[in-house]
């Protein structure tokens, strides 16, 4: 293996979007040899066939334990000898664990190159987490919107209010009870279910 050429990097991730984001980042940084694996069946056999220099895997992936087999005396042609960066480099390990990514690295690569690859993966992972959070928040807001609309409909029907009046009633109740308007709307839905 020549460590000076672009090392072969395998990304093991069940999230295709995150894997794509990682791959894009690596390619932009000049790492041209990147393969993604999202299917966990026969994971070890596929990795042996690809014979990568570096394997990057999400820490939330239970298949991480499967990779531990590579460290055994095995029939594998070549096996990674270190995990994360280096035993001495606690900061990188910590950063990688915090970000939820771990890297298995085959011997023979220069430490600085490994560090830059890992740093890149860590920052991309963090960027993805942020995106995911925003998406979750948007989804929740959307759900809340739906609940509020249904509660409004119930108030309009039961109390003969206009849409505007129904909304104002919920908002003022929320303020008085120091609750979110979504919670008040949910209570209305629950109550109306019970009283059916």
């Amino acid at each position, binding site marked *: 293996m020549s460590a000076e050429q672009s090392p072969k990097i395998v990304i093991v991730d069940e999230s295709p979007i995150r894997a794509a984001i990682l791959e894009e980042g690596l390619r932009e940084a000049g790492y041209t040899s990147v393969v993604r694996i999202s299917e*966990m069946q026969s994971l070890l056999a596929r990795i042996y066939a690809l014979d990568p220099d570096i394997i990057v895997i999400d820490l*939330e*992936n239970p298949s991480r*334990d499967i990779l531990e087999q590579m460290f055994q*005396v095995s029939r594998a042609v070549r096996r990674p000898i270190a995990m994360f960066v280096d035993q001495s480099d606690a900061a990188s390990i910590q950063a990688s664990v915090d970000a939820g990514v771990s890297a298995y690295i085959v011997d023979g690569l220069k430490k600085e190159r490994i560090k830059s690859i890992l740093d890149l993966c860590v920052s991309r992972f963090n960027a993805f987490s942020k995106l995911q959070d925003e998406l979750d928040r948007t989804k929740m807001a959307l759900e809340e919107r739906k609940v509020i609309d249904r509660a409004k409909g119930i108030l309009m029907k039961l109390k003969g209010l206009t849409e505007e009046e129904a909304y104002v009633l919920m908002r003022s109740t929320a303020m008085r009870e120091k609750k979110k308007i979504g919670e008040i709307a949910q209570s209305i839905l629950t109550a109306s279910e019970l009283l059916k």
Partner: protein
Amino acid sequence: MTTPLHIGFIPLVDAASLIVAVDKGFCAEEGLDVTLVREVSWSNVRDKLNIGLFEAAHLLAPVAIASSLGLGHVKVPITAPFNLGINGNAITVSPALHVAIMAEIDGAAADPLVTARALARVVAKRRKAGAEPLTFGMTFPFSTHNYQLRFWMAAGGVDPDEDVHLVVLPPPYMVDSITNGHVDAFCVGAPWNSIAVDRGVGHILHFVSDILVRAAEKVLAIRQSWSEKNPAVVVSLVRAAKRAAEFIEEPGNRAEAAYILAQPERVGVDAEVIQRTLDGRLKISPDGTIRESARYLLVGREAATRPDPLQAAWLYAQMARWGQTAVSPEALKTAMAVFRPDLYDAALGKSGGAAADTAIGAFTGPVFDPEDIKGYLHSFDIPRRAP
């Protein structure tokens, strides 16, 4: 209140003492502020413990030893002042393999030597017929499951490295893997064997207590450096865990313990399935056959909670037997020193209790002697290479 502690665990029934210690408030009563963190892989638990994201963890006993010796990974000395479980695993085979083994059986199917020899005949027939070797799933290279499976099949003449495929599978994937035929059998802890039986895709062939009367399964693992700096916290943790173990072993508390463990953020399976495990009363066949064993999983009884260096030595000998390390007297000493009955006794005094008989109790082979591991290993025909 002491500083907050983060303790990692894998959703398995043998994390029971830790989970109950926290959720019943025993930790809080000892002045501990513990957050349990559910993890998805043993590698994560080990690494987060090693780098200090966890102060303690529910850990495979062999991983605590491997980590202390630097086998397979970075070397971080681990201290185990409390044993979280003895036994608790089972070997489950697919319905097809069950039929094949039963067709070859020559004696009592409850005898592991008889089933292992039957397995050897199944393996030989498959080879002759040009069929793929059988695949066995286990949970981690450094796991009791791995060693129990190997010990069993080797006794019947099956070389686990030559005659079958032995693969690591995360426990939650075991049932799916046997359903879709990716494995023919597996050795795993509770509740996964019961779930395979309930779904009609597996037969429990053996409880691991058929293979070894007593095997240290999981430990409460603490980084040695941290343990030395925080002796009072270690004492409190051991006390809380011991109280939880005693709570769980009280038959009248079983239902409550099972309910606590069943919570989605804990083990996350039906309380009824968990209680079967705690009671040692398992459905072993899809036809409804029940098997009861007082030895299936020991959480707190028979001094299961007291770490036993003999167990550490036995696990170390398995690592040597299967080529994970070479035998060395220094390494043996290090391995045995991971298990700390002294810390356990210091925390609990006489109330900790001691077992009358703590022998390994293997179904075959010589009595294990930590003073002569080389002689012990030479007594086995398998692996066929010289150890």
